[in-house]
Protein backbone atom coordinates (compact mmCIF):
# COMPACT_ATOMS: atom_id res chain seq x y z
CA UNK A 1 0.00 0.00 0.00
CA UNK A 2 1.30 3.46 -0.82
CA UNK A 3 2.36 5.16 2.40
CA UNK A 4 0.27 7.59 4.32
CA UNK A 5 1.69 11.10 4.12
CA UNK A 6 1.23 12.54 7.59
CA UNK A 7 0.57 16.22 8.19
CA UNK A 8 3.05 16.46 11.05
CA UNK A 9 5.43 14.40 13.13
CA UNK A 10 2.73 14.24 15.83
CA UNK A 11 0.28 12.85 13.30
CA UNK A 12 2.90 10.38 12.04
CA UNK A 13 3.46 8.75 15.45
CA UNK A 14 -0.14 8.94 16.63
CA UNK A 15 -0.63 5.18 16.31
CA UNK A 16 2.11 4.27 18.81
CA UNK A 17 0.53 2.74 21.92
CA UNK A 18 1.77 1.89 25.40
CA UNK A 19 3.90 -1.23 25.44
CA UNK A 20 5.05 -0.96 21.83
CA UNK A 21 8.48 -2.02 20.60
CA UNK A 22 9.98 0.91 18.72
CA UNK A 23 13.13 0.87 16.60
CA UNK A 24 14.86 4.24 16.43
CA UNK A 25 17.40 4.86 13.67
CA UNK A 26 20.56 6.89 13.81
CA UNK A 27 24.17 6.61 14.85
CA UNK A 28 25.25 9.70 16.72
CA UNK A 29 23.29 12.56 15.23
CA UNK A 30 23.54 11.11 11.72
CA UNK A 31 20.18 9.65 10.78
CA UNK A 32 18.54 10.41 14.14
CA UNK A 33 14.83 11.07 13.52
CA UNK A 34 14.76 13.87 16.08
CA UNK A 35 11.36 15.30 15.12
CA UNK A 36 9.74 11.85 15.34
CA UNK A 37 11.38 11.15 18.70
CA UNK A 38 10.17 14.49 20.02
CA UNK A 39 6.68 13.66 18.76
CA UNK A 40 6.85 10.27 20.50
CA UNK A 41 7.77 12.15 23.68
CA UNK A 42 4.74 14.40 23.26
CA UNK A 43 2.28 11.62 22.39
CA UNK A 44 2.58 10.09 25.83
CA UNK A 45 3.08 6.43 24.92
CA UNK A 46 4.88 4.65 27.75
CA UNK A 47 6.15 1.22 28.79
CA UNK A 48 8.12 1.14 25.55
CA UNK A 49 10.82 -1.24 24.42
CA UNK A 50 13.29 0.80 22.38
CA UNK A 51 16.01 -0.40 20.03
CA UNK A 52 18.73 2.11 19.19
CA UNK A 53 22.49 1.93 18.91
CA UNK A 54 22.81 4.07 22.04
CA UNK A 55 20.71 4.89 25.09
CA UNK A 56 20.22 8.60 24.65
CA UNK A 57 22.61 11.50 24.88
CA UNK A 58 22.48 14.77 26.85
CA UNK A 59 19.03 16.27 27.42
CA UNK A 60 17.30 15.59 24.13
CA UNK A 61 15.39 12.95 22.23
CA UNK A 62 15.69 9.41 23.51
CA UNK A 63 17.46 10.62 26.67
CA UNK A 64 14.31 12.52 27.66
CA UNK A 65 12.10 9.48 27.04
CA UNK A 66 14.37 7.59 29.42
CA UNK A 67 14.42 10.45 31.94
CA UNK A 68 10.61 10.35 32.04
CA UNK A 69 10.72 6.55 32.58
CA UNK A 70 8.75 5.88 29.40
CA UNK A 71 11.22 3.20 28.30
CA UNK A 72 10.95 -0.05 30.25
CA UNK A 73 13.62 -1.81 28.20
CA UNK A 74 16.35 -0.76 25.83
CA UNK A 75 18.18 -2.99 23.37
CA UNK A 76 21.40 -1.30 22.27
CA UNK A 77 25.13 -1.74 21.76
CA UNK A 78 26.57 1.32 23.46
CA UNK A 79 24.55 2.81 26.33
CA UNK A 80 27.37 4.34 28.35
CA UNK A 81 28.66 7.62 27.01
CA UNK A 82 29.99 10.79 28.57
CA UNK A 83 26.53 12.35 28.24
CA UNK A 84 24.25 9.36 28.88
CA UNK A 85 23.41 10.57 32.39
CA UNK A 86 19.66 9.94 32.15
CA UNK A 87 20.19 6.33 31.13
CA UNK A 88 22.92 5.88 33.76
CA UNK A 89 20.59 7.11 36.48
CA UNK A 90 17.64 4.98 35.40
CA UNK A 91 19.88 1.93 35.05
CA UNK A 92 21.51 2.33 38.44
CA UNK A 93 18.06 2.79 39.96
CA UNK A 94 16.96 -0.49 38.38
CA UNK A 95 14.26 1.35 36.47
CA UNK A 96 15.24 0.34 32.96
CA UNK A 97 16.08 -3.08 31.59
CA UNK A 98 19.17 -3.27 29.36
CA UNK A 99 19.80 -5.87 26.67
CA UNK A 100 23.34 -5.25 25.49
CA UNK A 101 24.06 -6.52 21.96
CA UNK A 102 27.24 -6.22 19.90
CA UNK A 103 26.56 -3.67 17.18
CA UNK A 104 26.92 -6.08 14.27
CA UNK A 105 24.64 -8.63 15.93
CA UNK A 106 22.13 -5.85 16.56
CA UNK A 107 22.20 -4.97 12.86
CA UNK A 108 22.02 -8.62 11.77
CA UNK A 109 19.15 -9.40 14.16
CA UNK A 110 17.17 -6.51 12.68
CA UNK A 111 18.03 -7.67 9.18
CA UNK A 112 16.90 -11.22 10.10
CA UNK A 113 13.54 -9.92 11.32
CA UNK A 114 12.90 -8.12 8.04
CA UNK A 115 14.13 -11.09 6.03
CA UNK A 116 12.05 -13.81 7.73
CA UNK A 117 15.08 -15.62 9.17
CA UNK A 118 14.26 -17.49 12.38
CA UNK A 119 17.78 -17.33 13.86
CA UNK A 120 21.41 -17.32 12.74
CA UNK A 121 24.83 -18.40 13.93
CA UNK A 122 27.20 -15.45 14.32
CA UNK A 123 30.86 -15.58 15.36
CA UNK A 124 30.59 -12.21 17.11
CA UNK A 125 30.46 -12.52 20.88
CA UNK A 126 31.47 -16.19 20.98
CA UNK A 127 33.28 -16.94 24.23
CA UNK A 128 32.21 -13.65 25.84
CA UNK A 129 29.87 -12.59 28.63
CA UNK A 130 27.33 -11.53 26.01
CA UNK A 131 26.97 -15.12 24.83
CA UNK A 132 26.23 -16.49 28.29
CA UNK A 133 23.08 -18.57 28.32
CA UNK A 134 22.92 -18.63 24.54
CA UNK A 135 23.19 -21.67 22.31
CA UNK A 136 26.63 -21.98 20.73
CA UNK A 137 28.05 -24.25 18.08
CA UNK A 138 31.44 -24.91 16.54
CA UNK A 139 31.16 -24.99 12.74
CA UNK A 140 34.23 -25.86 10.66
CA UNK A 141 36.39 -25.24 13.71
CA UNK A 142 35.03 -21.77 14.47
CA UNK A 143 32.73 -20.85 17.35
CA UNK A 144 29.33 -19.28 16.74
CA UNK A 145 26.44 -17.99 18.87
CA UNK A 146 22.79 -18.44 17.89
CA UNK A 147 21.05 -15.07 17.73
CA UNK A 148 17.37 -14.36 17.12
CA UNK A 149 15.55 -11.74 15.05
CA UNK A 150 14.36 -8.49 16.63
CA UNK A 151 10.82 -7.85 15.45
CA UNK A 152 9.14 -4.56 16.26
CA UNK A 153 5.84 -2.75 16.07
CA UNK A 154 7.25 0.54 14.80
CA UNK A 155 10.40 1.99 13.31
CA UNK A 156 11.25 5.69 13.40
CA UNK A 157 13.64 6.44 10.56
CA UNK A 158 15.18 9.52 8.99
CA UNK A 159 15.82 9.52 5.26
CA UNK A 160 16.78 12.23 2.81
CA UNK A 161 14.02 11.88 0.24
CA UNK A 162 10.88 9.84 -0.43
CA UNK A 163 8.83 9.55 -3.56
CA UNK A 164 5.04 9.18 -3.51
CA UNK A 165 5.31 5.37 -3.44
CA UNK A 166 7.55 5.51 -0.38
CA UNK A 167 10.86 4.67 -2.05
CA UNK A 168 13.67 6.15 0.02
CA UNK A 169 17.21 7.39 -0.39
CA UNK A 170 19.43 8.40 2.49
CA UNK A 171 22.42 10.71 2.80
CA UNK A 172 26.01 9.57 3.53
CA UNK A 173 26.51 7.83 6.90
CA UNK A 174 22.99 8.85 7.97
CA UNK A 175 21.84 5.70 6.17
CA UNK A 176 23.11 3.42 9.00
CA UNK A 177 20.20 1.52 10.66
CA UNK A 178 17.40 3.07 8.57
CA UNK A 179 16.93 0.43 5.86
CA UNK A 180 17.06 -2.58 8.19
CA UNK A 181 14.81 -0.97 10.80
CA UNK A 182 12.20 -0.03 8.19
CA UNK A 183 12.12 -3.68 7.09
CA UNK A 184 12.06 -5.14 10.62
CA UNK A 185 9.04 -3.18 11.89
CA UNK A 186 5.40 -3.86 11.19
CA UNK A 187 4.95 -0.13 10.67
CA UNK A 188 7.79 2.10 9.46
CA UNK A 189 7.43 5.84 10.07
CA UNK A 190 9.90 7.92 8.08
CA UNK A 191 10.79 11.59 8.30
CA UNK A 192 12.33 13.05 5.16
CA UNK A 193 13.72 16.35 4.04
CA UNK A 194 11.65 16.27 0.88
CA UNK A 195 8.99 14.31 -0.93
CA UNK A 196 9.25 14.05 -4.71
CA UNK A 197 6.81 12.74 -7.28
CA UNK A 198 6.76 9.06 -8.21
CA UNK A 199 9.55 8.53 -10.72
CA UNK A 200 11.67 11.21 -9.07
CA UNK A 201 14.11 8.64 -7.63
CA UNK A 202 16.28 6.53 -9.95
CA UNK A 203 15.05 2.90 -9.63
CA UNK A 204 18.70 1.74 -9.58
CA UNK A 205 19.48 3.99 -6.60
CA UNK A 206 16.49 3.26 -4.34
CA UNK A 207 17.83 2.07 -0.99
CA UNK A 208 14.55 1.28 0.79
CA UNK A 209 11.77 0.19 -1.58
CA UNK A 210 8.36 1.65 -0.76
CA UNK A 211 7.01 -1.76 0.29
CA UNK A 212 8.75 -1.22 3.64
CA UNK A 213 7.40 2.27 4.25
CA UNK A 214 4.03 2.92 5.92
CA UNK A 215 4.01 6.57 6.98
CA UNK A 216 6.03 9.49 5.65
CA UNK A 217 6.28 12.99 7.06
CA UNK A 218 8.09 15.79 5.28
CA UNK A 219 10.14 17.78 7.78
CA UNK A 220 12.20 19.88 5.41
CA UNK A 221 15.32 21.09 7.06
CA UNK A 222 18.96 21.39 6.72
CA UNK A 223 20.04 18.60 4.43
CA UNK A 224 22.36 19.84 1.75
Amino acid sequence: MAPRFAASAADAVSGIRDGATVLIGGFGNAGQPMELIDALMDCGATDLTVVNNNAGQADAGLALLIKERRVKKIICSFPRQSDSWHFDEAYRAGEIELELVPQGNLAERLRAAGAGIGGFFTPTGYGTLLAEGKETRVIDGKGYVLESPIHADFALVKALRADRTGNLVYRKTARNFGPIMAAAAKHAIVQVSEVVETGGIDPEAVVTPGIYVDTVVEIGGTNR
Partner: protein
Amino acid sequence: MSTTYTSTHTSTDAPLGKDELAQLVAADITRGSFVNLGIGQPTLVSNYLSPDQDVTLHTENGMLGMGPQATGEQVDEDLINAGKIPVTELPGASYFHHADSFAMMRGGHLDVCVLGAFQVSQSGDLANWHTGAPGAIPAVGGAMDLAIGAKETWVMMGLFTKQGESKLVEALTYPVTGLGCVSRVYTESAVFLIRPEGVTVRSTHGITFEELAGRLPVELTRA
Protein backbone atom coordinates in the same frame (compact mmCIF):
# COMPACT_ATOMS: atom_id res chain seq x y z
CA MET B 1 -3.38 -6.11 4.54
CA SER B 2 -6.38 -8.40 4.26
CA THR B 3 -8.65 -8.86 1.32
CA THR B 4 -12.40 -8.59 1.13
CA TYR B 5 -14.95 -10.87 -0.46
CA THR B 6 -18.69 -11.32 -0.56
CA SER B 7 -19.89 -13.55 2.22
CA THR B 8 -22.76 -15.05 0.30
CA HIS B 9 -22.41 -17.89 -2.15
CA THR B 10 -22.65 -16.96 -5.84
CA SER B 11 -22.82 -19.09 -8.95
CA THR B 12 -22.69 -18.94 -12.74
CA ASP B 13 -24.09 -21.43 -15.24
CA ALA B 14 -20.84 -22.10 -17.06
CA PRO B 15 -17.31 -22.94 -15.89
CA LEU B 16 -14.95 -19.98 -15.94
CA GLY B 17 -12.45 -19.55 -18.75
CA LYS B 18 -8.83 -18.76 -17.91
CA ASP B 19 -9.34 -15.07 -18.54
CA GLU B 20 -12.53 -14.93 -16.50
CA LEU B 21 -10.68 -16.63 -13.66
CA ALA B 22 -7.81 -14.16 -13.91
CA GLN B 23 -10.35 -11.34 -13.88
CA LEU B 24 -11.95 -12.75 -10.73
CA VAL B 25 -8.59 -12.99 -8.95
CA ALA B 26 -7.67 -9.46 -10.03
CA ALA B 27 -10.93 -8.10 -8.66
CA ASP B 28 -10.23 -9.74 -5.29
CA ILE B 29 -6.89 -7.99 -4.78
CA THR B 30 -7.22 -5.14 -2.31
CA ARG B 31 -6.30 -1.66 -3.47
CA GLY B 32 -2.64 -0.81 -2.88
CA SER B 33 -1.42 -4.40 -2.51
CA PHE B 34 2.08 -5.70 -3.28
CA VAL B 35 1.61 -8.86 -5.33
CA ASN B 36 3.72 -11.60 -6.88
CA LEU B 37 2.11 -13.52 -9.73
CA GLY B 38 4.64 -16.35 -10.05
CA ILE B 39 4.98 -17.72 -13.55
CA GLY B 40 2.56 -19.19 -16.08
CA GLN B 41 -1.22 -18.92 -15.68
CA PRO B 42 -1.29 -16.51 -12.70
CA THR B 43 0.55 -13.87 -14.72
CA LEU B 44 -2.72 -13.45 -16.68
CA VAL B 45 -4.06 -11.67 -13.59
CA SER B 46 -1.94 -8.63 -14.42
CA ASN B 47 -4.05 -8.03 -17.52
CA TYR B 48 -7.08 -7.36 -15.33
CA LEU B 49 -5.64 -5.12 -12.64
CA SER B 50 -7.07 -1.65 -13.04
CA PRO B 51 -4.75 1.34 -12.67
CA ASP B 52 -6.83 2.70 -9.79
CA GLN B 53 -6.24 -0.54 -7.88
CA ASP B 54 -2.71 0.77 -7.43
CA VAL B 55 -1.24 -2.73 -7.22
CA THR B 56 2.57 -3.03 -7.26
CA LEU B 57 3.94 -6.17 -8.87
CA HIS B 58 7.03 -7.90 -7.48
CA THR B 59 9.18 -10.24 -9.51
CA GLU B 60 11.54 -12.36 -7.45
CA ASN B 61 14.46 -11.78 -9.78
CA GLY B 62 14.82 -8.38 -8.21
CA MET B 63 12.20 -5.76 -8.96
CA LEU B 64 9.17 -3.97 -7.60
CA GLY B 65 6.99 -1.94 -9.95
CA MET B 66 7.03 -4.36 -12.86
CA GLY B 67 4.93 -3.23 -15.83
CA PRO B 68 3.29 -5.15 -18.67
CA GLN B 69 5.13 -7.49 -20.98
CA ALA B 70 7.52 -5.63 -23.29
CA THR B 71 6.83 -5.48 -27.02
CA GLY B 72 8.89 -4.40 -30.02
CA GLU B 73 11.38 -1.70 -29.17
CA GLN B 74 10.71 -2.05 -25.44
CA VAL B 75 12.34 -5.48 -25.26
CA ASP B 76 15.48 -5.27 -23.12
CA GLU B 77 17.29 -8.44 -22.13
CA ASP B 78 18.25 -6.89 -18.78
CA LEU B 79 14.59 -6.44 -17.84
CA ILE B 80 12.77 -9.74 -17.47
CA ASN B 81 10.31 -11.37 -15.11
CA ALA B 82 10.66 -14.63 -13.19
CA GLY B 83 9.43 -16.52 -16.25
CA LYS B 84 12.31 -14.88 -18.21
CA ILE B 85 9.83 -12.93 -20.34
CA PRO B 86 10.80 -9.32 -21.21
CA VAL B 87 8.75 -6.85 -19.20
CA THR B 88 8.64 -3.10 -18.63
CA GLU B 89 9.30 -0.75 -15.73
CA LEU B 90 6.65 1.51 -14.18
CA PRO B 91 7.33 4.85 -12.46
CA GLY B 92 8.25 4.20 -8.83
CA ALA B 93 10.01 0.94 -9.65
CA SER B 94 13.08 -0.26 -7.75
CA TYR B 95 15.74 -2.91 -8.34
CA PHE B 96 17.51 -5.05 -5.74
CA HIS B 97 19.62 -8.18 -5.62
CA HIS B 98 18.39 -11.72 -5.18
CA ALA B 99 18.99 -11.98 -1.42
CA ASP B 100 17.10 -8.74 -0.81
CA SER B 101 14.32 -9.86 -3.14
CA PHE B 102 13.76 -13.17 -1.38
CA ALA B 103 14.13 -11.49 2.01
CA MET B 104 11.22 -9.30 0.95
CA MET B 105 9.13 -12.40 0.28
CA ARG B 106 10.29 -14.52 3.19
CA GLY B 107 9.87 -11.60 5.57
CA GLY B 108 6.14 -11.46 4.85
CA HIS B 109 6.12 -8.09 3.12
CA LEU B 110 4.10 -9.12 0.08
CA ASP B 111 0.33 -9.07 0.49
CA VAL B 112 -0.61 -11.74 -2.03
CA CYS B 113 1.15 -14.36 -4.07
CA VAL B 114 -0.76 -16.22 -6.80
CA LEU B 115 0.56 -19.61 -7.88
CA GLY B 116 -0.35 -22.61 -9.99
CA ALA B 117 -0.62 -26.06 -8.36
CA PHE B 118 -0.73 -29.80 -8.93
CA GLN B 119 -2.67 -30.29 -5.70
CA VAL B 120 -3.90 -28.35 -2.68
CA SER B 121 -4.93 -30.10 0.53
CA GLN B 122 -7.89 -29.17 2.71
CA SER B 123 -5.45 -27.74 5.25
CA GLY B 124 -3.77 -25.52 2.67
CA ASP B 125 -0.72 -27.65 1.92
CA LEU B 126 0.57 -26.93 -1.57
CA ALA B 127 2.16 -29.22 -4.17
CA ASN B 128 3.37 -27.49 -7.31
CA TRP B 129 7.05 -28.18 -7.84
CA HIS B 130 7.62 -31.85 -8.58
CA THR B 131 5.48 -34.66 -9.86
CA GLY B 132 7.59 -37.19 -8.01
CA ALA B 133 7.43 -39.37 -11.13
CA PRO B 134 10.31 -41.85 -11.50
CA GLY B 135 13.01 -40.37 -13.72
CA ALA B 136 11.67 -36.83 -13.47
CA ILE B 137 14.46 -34.28 -12.97
CA PRO B 138 13.40 -32.09 -10.07
CA ALA B 139 13.47 -28.29 -10.30
CA VAL B 140 12.15 -25.98 -7.64
CA GLY B 141 13.08 -22.40 -8.54
CA GLY B 142 11.34 -19.95 -6.23
CA ALA B 143 8.25 -22.11 -5.67
CA MET B 144 8.93 -22.95 -2.01
CA ASP B 145 9.88 -19.36 -1.19
CA LEU B 146 6.77 -17.98 -2.86
CA ALA B 147 4.48 -20.52 -1.19
CA ILE B 148 5.38 -19.54 2.35
CA GLY B 149 6.43 -15.93 1.97
CA ALA B 150 3.40 -13.78 1.26
CA LYS B 151 0.72 -12.79 3.77
CA GLU B 152 -1.72 -14.74 1.59
CA THR B 153 -1.05 -17.43 -0.99
CA TRP B 154 -3.73 -18.02 -3.57
CA VAL B 155 -3.78 -20.83 -6.07
CA MET B 156 -5.17 -20.82 -9.62
CA MET B 157 -5.60 -24.28 -11.10
CA GLY B 158 -7.93 -26.60 -12.95
CA LEU B 159 -10.02 -28.40 -10.33
CA PHE B 160 -9.79 -31.82 -11.98
CA THR B 161 -7.02 -33.84 -13.60
CA LYS B 162 -7.47 -35.17 -17.11
CA GLN B 163 -8.65 -38.38 -15.46
CA GLY B 164 -11.31 -36.42 -13.60
CA GLU B 165 -9.73 -36.65 -10.16
CA SER B 166 -9.97 -33.74 -7.77
CA LYS B 167 -6.81 -31.69 -7.28
CA LEU B 168 -8.27 -30.36 -4.03
CA VAL B 169 -7.45 -33.32 -1.79
CA GLU B 170 -7.64 -34.51 1.78
CA ALA B 171 -3.87 -34.99 1.92
CA LEU B 172 -1.25 -34.40 -0.77
CA THR B 173 0.01 -37.33 -2.83
CA TYR B 174 2.52 -35.15 -4.69
CA PRO B 175 5.68 -33.84 -2.95
CA VAL B 176 5.01 -30.85 -0.69
CA THR B 177 5.98 -27.30 -1.70
CA GLY B 178 4.78 -25.65 1.51
CA LEU B 179 2.63 -26.65 4.49
CA GLY B 180 -0.59 -24.87 5.43
CA CYS B 181 0.16 -21.91 3.20
CA VAL B 182 -2.77 -21.68 0.75
CA SER B 183 -5.77 -19.58 1.78
CA ARG B 184 -7.74 -19.58 -1.50
CA VAL B 185 -8.10 -21.77 -4.53
CA TYR B 186 -9.52 -20.37 -7.78
CA THR B 187 -10.68 -22.98 -10.28
CA GLU B 188 -12.89 -23.05 -13.37
CA SER B 189 -15.63 -24.78 -11.35
CA ALA B 190 -15.46 -23.12 -7.94
CA VAL B 191 -13.63 -20.71 -5.68
CA PHE B 192 -12.58 -22.17 -2.32
CA LEU B 193 -11.59 -20.41 0.89
CA ILE B 194 -9.30 -22.50 3.09
CA ARG B 195 -9.70 -21.61 6.73
CA PRO B 196 -8.73 -23.17 10.03
CA GLU B 197 -12.31 -24.43 10.40
CA GLY B 198 -12.40 -26.04 6.95
CA VAL B 199 -12.98 -25.45 3.27
CA THR B 200 -15.71 -23.04 2.21
CA VAL B 201 -17.07 -22.78 -1.33
CA ARG B 202 -17.45 -19.13 -2.19
CA SER B 203 -18.84 -19.63 -5.69
CA THR B 204 -19.66 -22.38 -8.16
CA HIS B 205 -19.43 -22.21 -11.94
CA GLY B 206 -21.21 -24.69 -14.22
CA ILE B 207 -21.71 -27.07 -11.32
CA THR B 208 -23.99 -27.03 -8.30
CA PHE B 209 -22.68 -27.05 -4.77
CA GLU B 210 -24.21 -30.50 -4.30
CA GLU B 211 -22.57 -31.93 -7.42
CA LEU B 212 -19.26 -30.43 -6.32
CA ALA B 213 -19.57 -31.86 -2.82
CA GLY B 214 -20.23 -35.24 -4.40
CA ARG B 215 -17.09 -35.14 -6.56
CA LEU B 216 -14.55 -33.83 -4.05
CA PRO B 217 -12.92 -35.92 -1.30
CA VAL B 218 -13.03 -32.95 1.04
CA GLU B 219 -15.76 -31.72 3.36
CA LEU B 220 -17.19 -28.47 2.02
CA THR B 221 -19.38 -25.75 3.46
CA ARG B 222 -21.22 -23.17 1.42
CA ALA B 223 -20.37 -19.51 1.96
